[in-house]
């Protein structure tokens, strides 16, 4: 199939931005804030539905950062100081791991608006991957980063089982830290082998489609090892990845192509996106084309709402055209 979906936190629409600012200044209370979140969530879902995306998220508008639900709800962790979110002018709270990590209560559903997700369309949930969780944490308890990553994998498994039970059909694990590598240090084979083992734990018994979504870095660095990761789809940030190097490999599983740039307000030229995607698909699938998802390269929250909404429509139109011209159904 050729599908499309979003890959992260959506921006808060203007009304919600204003409500959260008013709340910070104590001009409105919890109730009014909650109402603003609900209305914005309906808007975020409607934007995805009307564009005809293959999987729908609730927009993740309450997520203060990708890690925060875990930082706030896992036993053994407390929220630390603000730290820069990769090479962006945005910040996250560093999880400080103080004791053994345990899954004590539901993590995502405390923030998610399941009641607004429509029944007729499959739901997608987005979670941090174990490697990114470990890399971005301050580890004061486990022997090393590897041990911490496996501990995160255990709690992710529990969380995913519970989310699958609620009806989610697609789980994206966001793993920017795996490819963000500005100083170009080599990623060791041992690390990639450990990442694979941790992913195995996370998706074990999962009756759900999975994707490891990478962004902010060059996906080709983790090839060919990533082709063996136990996930259905691999997500690639095409604004950070060398197309030439990517095309040297034949893929044996699905891909999520980060074809629109969520860190640029410029609305892309659809003809160009179509051409780039088509060439890439034909090149990485020399014999049999696997499933392809057209998506933003990372969280759309880097944009004001209107631009994000427009980019959602772009991914949908490009996916439709690819479907028609490559003669793929479904």
């Amino acid at each position, binding site marked *: 199939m050729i599908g499309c979906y979003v890959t992260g936190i959506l921006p808060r629409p203007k009304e919600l931005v204003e409500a959260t600012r008013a709340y910070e200044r104590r001009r409105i209370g919890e109730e009014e804030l909650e109402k603003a979140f609900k209305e914005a969530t309906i808007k975020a879902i409607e934007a995805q539905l009307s564009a005809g995306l293959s999987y729908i998220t609730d927009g993740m508008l309450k997520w203060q950062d990708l890690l925060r639900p875990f930082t706030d709800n896992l036993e053994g962790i407390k929220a630390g100081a603000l730290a820069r979110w990769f*090479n962006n002018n945005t*910040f996250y709270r560093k999880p400080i791991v103080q004791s053994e990590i345990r899954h004590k209560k539901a993590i995502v559903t405390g923030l998610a608006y399941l009641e607004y997700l429509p029944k007729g369309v499959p739901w997608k949930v987005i979670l941090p991957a174990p490697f990114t969780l470990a890399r971005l944490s301050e580890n004061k308890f486990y022997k090393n980063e590897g041990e911490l990553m496996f501990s995160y994998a255990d709690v992710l498994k529990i969380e995913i089982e519970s989310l699958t039970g609620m009806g989610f059909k697609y789980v994206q694990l966001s793993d920017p830290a795996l490819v963000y590598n500005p100083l170009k240090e080599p990623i060791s084979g041992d690390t990639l082998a450990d990442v694979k083992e941790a992913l195995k734990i996370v998706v074990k018994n999962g009756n759900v489609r999975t994707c490891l979504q990478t962004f902010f870095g060059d996906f080709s660095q983790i090839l060919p090892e990533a082709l063996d990761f136990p996930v259905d789809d691999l997500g690639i940030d095409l604004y950070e990845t060398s197309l030439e190097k990517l095309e040297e490999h034949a893929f044996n599983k699905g891909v999520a192509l980060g074809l629109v740039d969520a860190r*640029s307000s410029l609305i892309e030229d659809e003809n160009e996106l179509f051409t780039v995607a088509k060439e890439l698909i034909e090149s990485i699938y020399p014999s049999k084309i696997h499933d392809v998802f057209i998506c933003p390269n990372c969280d759309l929250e880097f944009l*004001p709402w209107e*631009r994000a909404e427009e980019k959602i429509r772009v991914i949908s139109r490009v996916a439709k055209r690819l479907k028609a011209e490559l003669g793929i159904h479904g």
Partner: protein
Amino acid sequence: MDKLFPTQEIGSLAKPAWRVKGYRGEPLSESEIAEAIDWGQRLGIMGVDELVKILKKKERTPEDRRAILEWSAKFAIRFFENAGLDIVFDGEQWRSEMYEHVIRNVEGFKFLGYVKSFDYRYFNKAACISKPKYTKPFYVEEFAFTCKNTDREVKVPFTGPYTLVDWTFNEYYERRLSGKIKDFKQRKLEARREFLFDLIKEVVRPEISRLVEAGAKWIQIDEPAATTNPSSEEMELFVEAFNETVKGFNCTFSLHNCYSNYEVLAKYAAELRNCSQLALEFANRDSRQDGTGEVRVGYRELRLFEDYGFKGNYGLGVIDVHTDFIEPPELVRDRILHAAKIVGDSSRIHVSTDCGLRTRTWDVSFAKLKNMVLGAELARKALT
């Protein structure tokens, strides 16, 4: 400056309610007006009744608003002078904010709206939609006013081009290269490069030129975004941008950068040409115990700048601007002495706050600056 350990601030000071609301034309409460009277007395400012008259008006004319701007600048200048600083400016009272002030005064930009910074904090982000065009000076009036109102040495804070570009969507240049460079990553980098050097040529250098003509002797280039992207391509771009910005002017330049990756910055600092000073944030990283040596954990990275061969001065951050803790003079002294020992040449240390004081109240800022000045005096005594 001949004096050992001269003292300076970095730039911004909080804007009093009377400045913000007064300028917007909003009504002021009695306590807000009383704040102006109170600080006017404390700072020995003459003729504050004139200001109060304007603040009490129901409707304010453009001349009133302009007067409020000038009053607030005068208050801030006296504030720094009274605290005892050797090098002063107007606390950036003239500017809305370091980013918006420039973008709003230059052609080619459009604000697109608020994007998340963290939690419920956002910033108004602009896009470059056409080639940046310089239409009018945006720092010169403020500089001239400051000079007229002080006898102390003046340093002009100037938002750097690399940061302006990093904080702005780059629509115009990305669109221009659309279809011309196939690889998206290379295209973005090239578009960024073109944006940056056009901005320097069309806007930044013309403004510096006006400042120098108006008599500016020292311009501090503020680049908080310098190490946001620590890759070698980006760091080289940053260095090239700084060098191009300051090239050929008969003026002293310095660089301010804070809350950044100093391991990365240190590697490139020696390549900054005509950079007489690096004003860096250290106090925020440091312990609060007195003493020199190992206890001064926050100043570890200073050594890196030395090891990589930076030869200029340091604007040594000895005051943490993110806490109300008032650093005792002894702590300030020990931070200075510790740094002087690392650098091995006391004349290369200027005493400074970590960053602008805009998030602290005037009371806290004043107490902090006074102690900074006392600490510098203690450090001078310790060495003579």
